[in-house]
């Protein structure tokens, strides 16, 4: 059950599960074609995928949104198009896990067309990948995307010139607003391009080595021998593995040639090869590009964009963004208005009483009625928590997150916090999973894949599990404490202190070099409402599908547990720990729920508070403890999958006692100081 839920989660997050075999055309079409979309991160591959297939892949205004492969299909006339969206890759020689996915895809799947999506503004730096695709012998066409922004930046790109220079079809588009897609579709349904004869010539020693390696290669690589030779020269690990696997007797010979060539240079061959390609790209781009010579007036977005990065102006902007996103939208709107209405009025006054009355009349045995409408009933608790408490909060957060993503604010946030994050053993890049963690820690744990070093991934996973409240917790905290500024400040202060201190300690303990920080800062863009809506809904749908069955299951489990007295025993075991940190007995079931899922525990605290059993210092202490303590079952499973079971157990074993310890100390301190909250 959990495994399936997890697979589903991974699927939706990456857009895969929605891309399965949905489209089953009525009649067998005349031709089938497979198109693979490739390109650097953040050039609009996923937008084009969505436009072509009508299906949704996660799209954002920052690199690394697609971490796995997404498939869909489209029908153009009598051509059935299979479209494959790949994770962003700068080069065929991969540096990260997601780039490796793209290399494998191109090697193992016979594509009829590889459509490279290019950001027209950045033609110069994206052509090296084009050259590599051509070298690999793939049938390539270019989609010159984001033409609108290039024009605004005073850049004129001539697709015809580019097409002539490279011997490839080149289609200009502005996919986000749908411009040029007809031409793209026409190209895809008409004839496919012949192989380009364009070739980059490398310095003599490298060309010599290629010439010597190619005869030693046999088939089975899936790419042109010239490209394989270049990958071997660049010491690409996956290609070397394949060479050893395919024909181990020739590898010593290849090794000698590569070593001899390396000896002629003092820098890695990859550097020379990359520079040669870059020079060729500069030549081609020089012919196809014209930059408007007059200095361009800065647009409003650029001015704001510069202010958000400014060392002084950036901080209040950051504070304002967080205040609006978290406090106003998640706290006030989500917890106050939405939950107030759905839980207080809709369920509290109408649905729950009606269903309870109905069930009591229909079901003669009280024990059975309890299953549906009791204190922990499937409808009165499970469904209500999911629909009326957790989803509104999570939805409010996902909406804000989508706005932050699409506006391009997140990379700016990354550069503002890089220096602080360095102290925690992270680079600014980690801000993306961390902020996403404020929505759902489980989803965020998956996204830690975009981090480049293992050390960084472990620290981020740990901090997500310990100190980052998910949006259900956040919403409940903000909702319950919004009337108590001091309480809210103490909660935020303790959580922030734990985040910084534990990160600092983790960075000291874990060996390894500090991760370098380098991140492209995309221009600030007005988010497209349609994109925001689709993205928020897709994430929310995933979340709903994830939690509703689990919450219902939890209700059933509690019911069974009550009947068999296991529930009472578990509560009795937890009670001493709960009492130790100064909480009443009623809080124990919130902690039990919290083990199951973070959001479930948070919703329980909300309920216990509304029942009048939790307020003042115990409320604050329970909020802090429950924020810290649970890596819930879902998150635990993802941790185990991504980081290994041992790491996951270690993280959990540190966190649970630590959280209770902090709760205990906080309780003592608040009592001693006689704080009124």
């Amino acid at each position: 059950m959990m495994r399936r839920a997890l697979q589903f989660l991974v699927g939706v997050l990456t857009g895969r599960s929605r891309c399965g075999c949905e489209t089953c055309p009525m009649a067998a079409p005349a031709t089938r074609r497979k198109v693979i979309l490739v390109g650097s991160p953040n050039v609009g591959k996923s937008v084009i995928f969505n436009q072509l297939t009508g299906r949704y892949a996660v799209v954002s205004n920052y690199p690394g949104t697609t971490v796995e492969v997404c498939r869909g299909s489209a029908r153009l006339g009598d051509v059935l198009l299979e479209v494959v969206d790949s994770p962003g890759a700068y080069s065929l020689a991969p540096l990260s896990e997601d780039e490796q996915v793209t290399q494998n895809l191109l090697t193992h799947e016979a594509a009829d067309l590889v459509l490279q999506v290019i950001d027209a503004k950045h033609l110069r730096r994206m052509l090296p990948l084009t050259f590599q695709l051509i070298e690999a012998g793939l049938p390539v066409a270019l989609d010159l995307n984001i033409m609108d922004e290039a024009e605004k930046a005073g850049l004129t790109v001539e697709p015809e010139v580019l097409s002539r220079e490279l011997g490839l079809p080149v289609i200009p588009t502005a996919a986000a607003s749908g411009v040029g897609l007809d031409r793209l579709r026409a190209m895809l349904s008409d004839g496919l391009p012949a192989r380009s004869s364009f070739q980059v010539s490398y310095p003599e020693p490298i060309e010599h080595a290629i010439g010597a390696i190619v005869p030693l290669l046999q088939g089975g690589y899936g790419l042109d021998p010239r490209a394989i030779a270049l990958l071997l020269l660049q010491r690409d690990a996956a290609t070397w593995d394949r060479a050893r696997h395919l024909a181990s007797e020739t590898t010593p010979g290849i090794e000698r040639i590569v070593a001899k060539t390396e000896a002629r240079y003092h820098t890695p061959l990859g550097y020379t090869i990359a520079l040669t390609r870059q020079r060729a790209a500069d030549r081609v781009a020089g012919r196809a590009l014209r930059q408007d010579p007059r200095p361009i007036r800065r647009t409003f977005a650029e001015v704001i964009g510069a202010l958000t990065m400014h060392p002084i102006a950036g901080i209040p902007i950051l504070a304002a963004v967080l205040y609006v996103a978290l406090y106003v939208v998640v706290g006030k709107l989500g917890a106050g208005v939405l939950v107030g209405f759905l839980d207080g009025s809709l369920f509290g006054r109408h649905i729950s009483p009606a269903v309870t009355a109905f069930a009591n009349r229909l079901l003669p045995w009280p024990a059975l009625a309890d299953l549906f409408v009791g204190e922990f009933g499937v409808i009165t608790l499970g469904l209500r928590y999911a629909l009326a408490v957790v989803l509104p909060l999570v939805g409010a957060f996902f909406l804000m997150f989508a706005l932050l993503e699409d506006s391009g604010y997140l990379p700016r946030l990354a550069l503002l916090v890089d220096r602080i994050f360095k102290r925690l053993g992270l680079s600014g890049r980690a801000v993306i999973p961390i902020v996403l963690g404020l929505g759902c820690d489980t989803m965020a744990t998956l996204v830690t894949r975009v981090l480049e070093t293992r050390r960084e991934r472990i620290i981020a996973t740990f901090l997500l599990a310990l100190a980052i409240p998910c949006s259900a917790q956040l919403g409940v905290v903000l909702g319950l404490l919004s009337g108590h500024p001091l309480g809210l400040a103490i909660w935020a202060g303790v959580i922030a202190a734990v985040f910084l201190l534990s990160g600092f300690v983790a960075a000291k303990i874990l060996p390894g070099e500090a991760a370098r920080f380098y991140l492209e800062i995309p221009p600030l863009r007005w988010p497209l409402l349609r994109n925001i809506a689709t993205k928020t809904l897709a994430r929310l749908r995933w979340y709903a599908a994830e939690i509703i069955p689990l919450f219902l299951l939890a209700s059933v489990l509690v019911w069974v547990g009550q009947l068999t007295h296991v529930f009472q025993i578990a509560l009795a075991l937890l009670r001493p720990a709960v009492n130790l940190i100064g909480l009443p007995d009623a809080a124990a079931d919130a902690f039990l729920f919290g083990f199951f899922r973070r959001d479930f525990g948070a919703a329980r605290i909300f309920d216990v508070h509304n029942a009048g059993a939790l307020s003042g210092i115990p409320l604050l202490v329970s909020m802090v403890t429950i924020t810290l303590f649970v890596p819930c079952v879902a998150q635990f499973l993802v941790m185990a999958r991504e980081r290994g079971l041992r790491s996951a157990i270690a993280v959990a074993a540190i966190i649970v006692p630590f959280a209770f310890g902090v709760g205990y100390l906080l309780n003592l301190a608040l009592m001693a100081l006689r704080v009124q909250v």
Partner: protein
Amino acid sequence: MTDLELSESAEEILASLWVAKTERNESSRQGCDLEIGDREAGLAQLGDLGLVHQEGGAVSLTPAGEVEAASIIRRERLAERLLTDVLALGEEQATEAACRFEHILRKGIDDQVCTLLGHPKACPHGSPIPPGDCCRTGARSAGTVISSLADLTPGQTGTIAYLQGTRRDMVQRMLAMGAAPGAPIVLLQTAPSYVFQVGQTQVAVDRETAEDIYVRIGGRRSPPAPSRRWFGRGRRWGRR
């Protein structure tokens, strides 16, 4: 030891011993392995000055010899940088000329050249340049031609001279983001992170990465970006 007048062959012997020791971990070499024209005279001079120690056929550096050798290597590699970065000679031409150039770069002048070149950490072939006093104090001069991005002020423009390739992934990523040698670059800000613009791309990096990007100050082209002043930290456009 400031005014040592070493013969050319003596300097070459010192240099090759230093490379063998620090870069190949051989503490001594067989004297006859030294492929140097006037080997005997060179060795004799070095022995007299107490810079090398000979035992049987093996030659090794004395502590004083090590200091002297590091200084020679430093001058030689600085000369290579000077010839490639400033005079834009091809790599092979530069290597050849550098050997002769090094003899002219007397001590003292090496610090000035080093400052001019922005205290480079490695020669064009990637071998490390032993740091001098000027590197430790981070001296700057008005005539600086090449500088690491980390030492520029916001608003300064130039073209990327080279990337210090300490990490293959870093270099490859930089190239992928458009920060290739020859590309015009503008430094936009230095805090809280370094932000620069190449072409149409803005990139944020930390200080360590900024230190690895060397810039030829004063671009041939006008900066591609904005021309107005925003907020406190002035952007001084037009400074060439």
